[in-house]
């Protein structure tokens, strides 16, 4: 039983580490604020869920596990709220999204995600330049 729990913990923690790495890479490589918010608030929250599940398997006391569930639900709601708050605030402050048709003017940072952003070419709405 101990071995099963330990194996599951290892798998869950490694999966969580993968999502945290994806969130960090997205934060560093995506071209504008809206894409970075997208990468961070989704990938990191999912990674935290995997890490919390892996940690919960090592506890074995129900109220400690309940604390982790409450913690993850709090982070889940907070990430969605903050993503919406920052994105709408950035639009009101004049931060413009990098759109697909502007790709040649974006310099070095836009080159790495050019293929994903090409899918939204021709869409005129403001939030759809994000991959």
């Amino acid at each position, binding site marked *: 039983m101990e071995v099963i729990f330990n194996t599951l913990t290892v798998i869950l923690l490694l999966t969580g580490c993968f999502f945290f790495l994806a969130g960090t890479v997205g934060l560093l490589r995506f071209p504008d604020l809206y894409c970075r918010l997208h990468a961070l608030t989704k990938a990191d929250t999912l990674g935290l869920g995997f890490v919390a599940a892996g*940690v919960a398997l090592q506890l074995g006391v129900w109220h400690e596990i309940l604390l982790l569930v409450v913690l993850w639900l*709090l982070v889940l709601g907070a*990430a969605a709220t903050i993503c919406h708050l920052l994105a709408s605030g950035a639009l009101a402050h004049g*931060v413009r999204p990098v*759109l697909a048709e502007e790709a040649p*003017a974006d310099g070095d940072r836009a080159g790495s995600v050019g293929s994903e952003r090409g899918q939204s070419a021709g869409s005129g709405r403001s939030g759809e330049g994000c991959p």
Partner: protein
Amino acid sequence: MTTFFLAVAFFLVANVAAGLVRVIRGPTQADRVVAAQLFGTTGVAILLVLSVAADARPLRDVALIFALLAVVISVAFVKRGWVRAPGRPSGYGEGQDRLEGGPNRGDGRENRRTGRDR
């Protein structure tokens, strides 16, 4: 097993260190706050892993406080700290005007390059 937990915690700390690059490069104030969100979420995960590795129950309560403070940081930034610099849209950091070129309409509907310059 403890060694594995410590390795995971070290990997997450390396993630936080990589996120510092975004704090330096910006370019907008909001990008730096997004990096602070990364520190909040990753910090919670580090504390959870360390609480099992060191068998320290209070660290899980500290992780809960970290999750709450990360929310407060962002709300305080959006409501109070996001200052508008005179003469230019406040979303741009110092010296980074790569995205400038359109009027600041503020409603988010017309955000495409106007063709007026460049």
